[in-house]
């Protein structure tokens, strides 16, 4: 699954650690999602969407 996590994070000037703190996950989780090694669960996808104030489909989409 493709995602715009890195792009959205860069727009806000956040590090992976900062985003991890906002989403209450580990920095490794953010890194794994950004590098497409790991697809987040639905609750985490909702949490990330809330952090960026976007809808899930504006962040994640099919490859």
């Amino acid at each position, binding site marked *: 699954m493709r995602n715009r996590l890195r792009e959205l994070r860069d727009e806000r000037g956040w590090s992976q650690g900062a985003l991890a703190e906002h989403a209450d*996950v580990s920095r490794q*989780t953010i890194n794994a999602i950004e590098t497409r090694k790991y697809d987040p669960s639905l609750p985490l996808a909702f949490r990330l969407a809330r952090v960026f104030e976007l809808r899930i489909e504006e962040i994640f989409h099919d490859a």
Partner: protein
Amino acid sequence: MTATPASERLATRRTLHLALATVGWVGTLALAQFGPELLWNRGVVFSWIALVLNLAVGAIWILVHVRYLRAAGELQRKVLLDATGLALGVGLVVGCALTAAHGAGLIGFQLDVALFIILIAVVYIVATAIGNLRYR
């Protein structure tokens, strides 16, 4: 595993609880295994007490482990689940193959359950380390 300091402190505490429960279980197992010979000259009452103590601490260890897994972050849970699946799979497949080989007279050495426990533990540790490196 979470990133906030409060959550990190909680995760560290849970890991510590798991480590303590593991040490407790291994210790009481050693007591039940070697105590009869080395400590109380095969007294049945003490052997029963040691066995019941080992089972009780083992039950606590299981509960602490389940709580640890439930509290782990989803990526960490995936790493641990993959490692558990691999360790159990390798343990079962190799264990059954060695048992069959022993039954057929293909191997000379005596099979011991400790061998499988060590195999499962080593595979689990290696798989967890690889999983953590992969998502670093």
